[in-house]
């Protein structure tokens, strides 16, 4: 179904993201330039070290997390059949943070993959609870749906912070809640490859999610098991959210605004829109992180804060847009 004009535009967008990635490699406190890389032995050795240990991992982490979180938002919107839902308005992210706290308290020696899996189990439970509440709600106004998710998230967060406060773990909780890529180093971001693989799974199953977005009756009529499609989607969303929170912390709004912008441009056929959502997600996160590194140089504004500002602005625009198709 993909025309050659579409493929051309996708190639162009990929090149744009590639360009941002290159910029990301050369922006930071440490002196990494083409000159320093090719300079005399001592300098080039240090610059290459920074590139290999910090800049390349950070750039990869930004691309992987950005693409995966945007796609997770897209899947969640299809499953909830609501354009205002994403992991941070559906209880997913808050539950994952609770999971991270639980594993830190109860089994502090758990390796990072175990922490992530625990967090994803909590995320799965929280999101399933959200969907169960939606199914029981008689009046499903499109704007009430994310409000319910935000309230559910707030309740979970209250519990998390109560426990964290008592055990002096507020600092860790804040780290999980606010995305920040400044701590990303080689050996500390590789979990994100799991979310990249899951994005690939989502692409393979794209038609199923689009059908699920048509509603339970259409899904059953077309011979798909609605419950199974929802379960697959929930597992992908939960694992991706947990992986991102475990490595760099939550990136708010990303899963909300990226799928909405792409939906306006290309529609909701996921086979067609998913590559765009992934690319724009990666590009937006890269751009926000680069700007965050530059505005108060040599200090940094964490990506969670940057995305919060940019994202809430775009979100307001989408809400207020006349004849907004989302509402």
């Amino acid at each position, binding site marked *: 179904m993909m025309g050659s004009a579409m493929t051309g535009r996708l190639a162009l967008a990929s090149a744009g993201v590639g360009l941002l990635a290159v910029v990301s490699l050369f922006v930071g406190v440490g002196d990494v330039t083409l000159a320093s890389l090719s300079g005399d032995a001592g300098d080039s050795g240090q610059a290459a070290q920074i590139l290999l240990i910090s800049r390349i991992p950070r750039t990869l982490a930004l691309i992987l997390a950005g693409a995966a979180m945007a796609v997770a938002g897209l899947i969640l919107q299809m499953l909830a059949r609501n354009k205002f839902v994403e992991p941070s308005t559906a209880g997913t992210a808050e539950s994952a943070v609770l999971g991270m706290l639980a594993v830190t308290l109860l089994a502090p020696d758990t390796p990072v993959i175990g922490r992530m899996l625990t967090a994803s189990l909590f995320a799965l439970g929280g999101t399933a609870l959200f969907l169960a509440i939606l199914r029981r709600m008689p009046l499903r106004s499109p704007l009430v749906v994310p409000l319910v998710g935000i309230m559910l998230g707030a309740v979970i967060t209250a519990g998390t912070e109560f426990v964290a406060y008592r055990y002096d773990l507020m600092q860790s909780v804040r780290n999980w809640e606010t995305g920040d890529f400044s701590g990303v180093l080689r050996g500390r971001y590789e979990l994100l490859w799991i979310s990249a693989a899951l994005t690939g799974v989502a692409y393979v199953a794209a*038609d199923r999610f689009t059908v699920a977005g048509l*509603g339970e009756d259409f899904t059953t009529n077309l011979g798909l098991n609605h419950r199974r499609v929802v379960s697959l989607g929930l597992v992908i969303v939960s694992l991706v959210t947990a992986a991102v929170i475990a490595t760099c912390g939550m990136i708010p709004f990303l899963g909300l605004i990226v799928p909405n912008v792409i939906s306006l441009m290309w529609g*909701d056929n996921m086979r067609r829109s998913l590559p765009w959502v992934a690319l724009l997600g990666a590009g937006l996160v890269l751009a926000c992180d680069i700007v965050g590194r530059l505005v108060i140089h040599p200090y940094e504004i964490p990506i969670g804060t940057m995305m919060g500002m940019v994202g809430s602005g775009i979100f307001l625009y989408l809400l207020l847009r006349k004849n907004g198709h989302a509402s």
Partner: protein
Amino acid sequence: MIEVRNTSKSYGRTIVVDDVSITLPAGGVISLIGPNGAGKSTLLSIISRLLPMTAGTVTVDGMDVTTTPGDVLARRLSILRQDNQILARLTVRDLIAFGRYPHSKGRLTVEDRGHIERVIDYLDLGAVAHRFLDELSGGQRQRAFIAMVLCQDTEYILLDEPLNNLDVKHAVAMMALFRRTADAFGKTVILVLHDINFASCYSDRIVAMRDGRIAYEGPPEAIITTDVIRDVYGVEAAIHEIDGQRIALYFR
């Protein structure tokens, strides 16, 4: 052949479908009529496994709808309910293409594409095929949904009030299309209809429901009578035969 055996559906103490048994033979146009709340839509949803039944069995060509794998059934029977709230921004052509999903699982073959273009043509949707569903009028959207179900190309096609939102021209064209689907392609089209005159003019058989039971069934000449309509709807209707079609007049 669709066989419904002692099928009931109740919500709490409210019985919506009450111990219904009926055999619907393959081929032809069958209309389900009856007053609001008679259980027509519920029965249609049970037959098409969208709604679980409280008691009884339904088989389609011998396959039990509650145990047969969904994708097997999806190649034999298709269903469109009324009031479809689609929020996804899909183009008309994309939506119709999803009708081929049970056959192609998303990888459209040349044959699939032929089906899609034919259905777009039949339903006069060529001019809006590239548009998004949320940019269409209610009638265009309804035709797009029906196109998707027809594109599924199943033996049995179940439609709940397919004439909703359609103007007279499109309603007549739609009924003629169902007639042709049955006559030229040997399909079985089962409709829930509100307009008893459409049912009278286009059906091979009419099933009249009331209070969750089947009150009458038979060819139009047996059902479109003053007595049956009074009994089913509680309305006095004069029956006129015009050009061989039985028309019920109940407007005043």
